């Protein structure tokens, strides 16, 4: 495998986004599965496409890969318009859509040979490397019908690597894996990103996306409701600080008067203070600390609260449910 080439980073003329869609829509009769999706997946990142089951994640991936037709909208893969330049674009794309499927009467290696035959001639030379990379070298000459689910998933990844992919599209790749398998998979994906490849990971598992991905698009009922870097989305544009003092009532009163504070709410382990989005977090936090000390309060806790993507995701989807 020509991993080194990817590790050298982006080519000068390579587009900044490996996936770009505009107004992408798919209807099945009256039902809209993918609704006017504008998606931008930055090169060299692990990008999560996160949404509940039935949100249209797989349908979007199937459209990108030419497995199903598009009702309306445009899309580009690796800078190439698809379906117009689909073959050239997919030559450098590896994908696992839903559960990876194989000819069960063939061995792992033979299954890779079948797929390599459909790719460029160099794909054959990548078979051994792909099997080694996914830890399947020892079992490569066994029939796939004897493989466990985890081995099939790894063989699916090995198959994707035959393309020497710039972009890996993985649809719910950890479905059915045990915790050790999930961890191994996570490390593998981070390894691909470290080599300069881009991974588009579709999942309904918030925790998984948060642990693996750099950026995310949150999708609900076919629509992308938010996209961007995970830290930014989780924060929702607001910095939050957790403060515990010797006198919570006085602290609440003081914080409530401060113009930098959007809200201050007492919780079991202290006061959760949300700063206004327009203020700079660090000077504002410094100022809050100084004022509390000057007021004679002892500060027992003063730390930025780590916003959770899960909380943000639930906020967004519950807001949408209320609006519906």
């Amino acid at each position, binding site marked *: 495998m020509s991993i080194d080439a990817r590790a050298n980073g982006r080519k000068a003329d390579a587009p900044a986004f490996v996936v770009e869609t505009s107004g992408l829509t798919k209807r099945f009769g009256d039902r809209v599965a993918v609704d006017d999706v504008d998606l931008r997946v930055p090169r060299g990142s692990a990008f999560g496409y996160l949404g509940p089951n039935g949100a249209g994640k797989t349908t979007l991936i199937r459209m990108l890969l030419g497995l199903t037709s598009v009702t309306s909208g445009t899309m580009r893969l690796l800078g190439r318009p698809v379906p117009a330049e689909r073959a050239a674009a997919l030559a450098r794309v590896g994908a696992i859509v839903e559960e990876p499927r194989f*000819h069960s009467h063939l061995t792992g290696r033979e299954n890779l040979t079948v797929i390599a*035959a*459909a790719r460029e001639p160099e794909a054959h030379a990548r078979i051994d490397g792909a099997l080694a990379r996914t830890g399947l070298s020892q079992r490569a000459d066994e029939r796939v019908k004897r493989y466990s689910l985890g081995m099939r998933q790894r063989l699916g990844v090995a198959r994707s690597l035959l393309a020497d992919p710039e972009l890996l599209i993985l649809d719910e790749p950890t479905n059915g894996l045990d915790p050790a398998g999930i961890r191994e998979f996570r490390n593998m994906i981070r390894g691909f990103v470290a080599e300069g490849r881009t991974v588009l990971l579709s999942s309904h598992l918030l925790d998984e996306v948060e642990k693996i991905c750099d950026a995310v698009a949150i999708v609900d009922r076919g629509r992308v409701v938010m996209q961007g870097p995970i830290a930014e989305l989780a924060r929702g544009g607001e910095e939050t600080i957790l403060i515990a003092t010797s006198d919570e009532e006085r602290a609440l009163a003081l914080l409530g008067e401060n113009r930098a504070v959007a809200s201050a709410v007492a919780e079991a382990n202290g006061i959760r203070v949300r700063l206004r989005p327009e203020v700079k977090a660090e000077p504002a936090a410094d100022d809050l600390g100084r004022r509390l000390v000057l007021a004679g309060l002892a500060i027992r806790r003063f730390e930025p609260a780590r916003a959770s993507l899960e909380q943000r995701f639930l906020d967004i989807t519950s807001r949408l449910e209320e609006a519906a």
Partner: protein
Amino acid sequence: MTTTSATAHLPRARRRAARMPRLVNAELLKLRKRRGLVLVTFALTLLPIIIAYVVLVALHAAEPAKHGPAGGLDNFSGSLYLLAQLGVVAAVLIGATAGAGDIGSGVFRELVVTGRSRFALFAARLPAAFGLALAAAWAGFALTAVASTVLAGSLEAPGAGLLVEGAGWLALVIGLAVVLALSLSSALGSRSIAIGVVLGLELAVMPALLQIRALGSLRELLPVVATDSLAPSALFDGEVAVPTSVSVAVVVVAAWTLVPLAAGAWRTCKRDA
């Protein structure tokens, strides 16, 4: 260095041509690794011929006055007819498996994701299926040819010309069955339904239609009429159920080849993967 750069400047047509035999080899790999299919195929094309000649040899040895030598032209003709009938069954099994194997296993989706054209994926199935079916049929044919020549005794043995014509005719019959089964299974996405429909056509519907004299010259449109009329005249006593001209037979065979292939290719290109 990337592996891409080494080949990026090869002409596209050359790269495409280089990939086609690999696709055919891959299709052949999928077929020949199905042990059950290969066993049934060779059982259908070799075993009956072996049994037939063993019985003929035994009968001749037991009562030479009543039963002539096992070889000769008549027995060659009879065993070739048997081989064609059973070879068609094998060809249908192979064609249907080649046509629907990827769809049935879910691997068609994985092949489409490579960016390879769907038409190329369909087209690669045909030579692979034809190759396996023909290898089995010709193995049976070789046995027939050798047995009918070696065991001819005082009878006339089939000549080299007739053997070549017979092998060609067998390839035509087998090829047509492969095309029908492969195209139908590609179109339907189901191996078992395709096998049922094509075997039903070959073994029940077409023989029944042949017997309906009221259909008159419409029966010339049946592929079995066309292939029978293209058989070497020295075979089957030169008799055909429905006489037809060579040109009509050729057109009928071409139509029964091209129309199903077009339908199978179209469906393969258009189906959701």
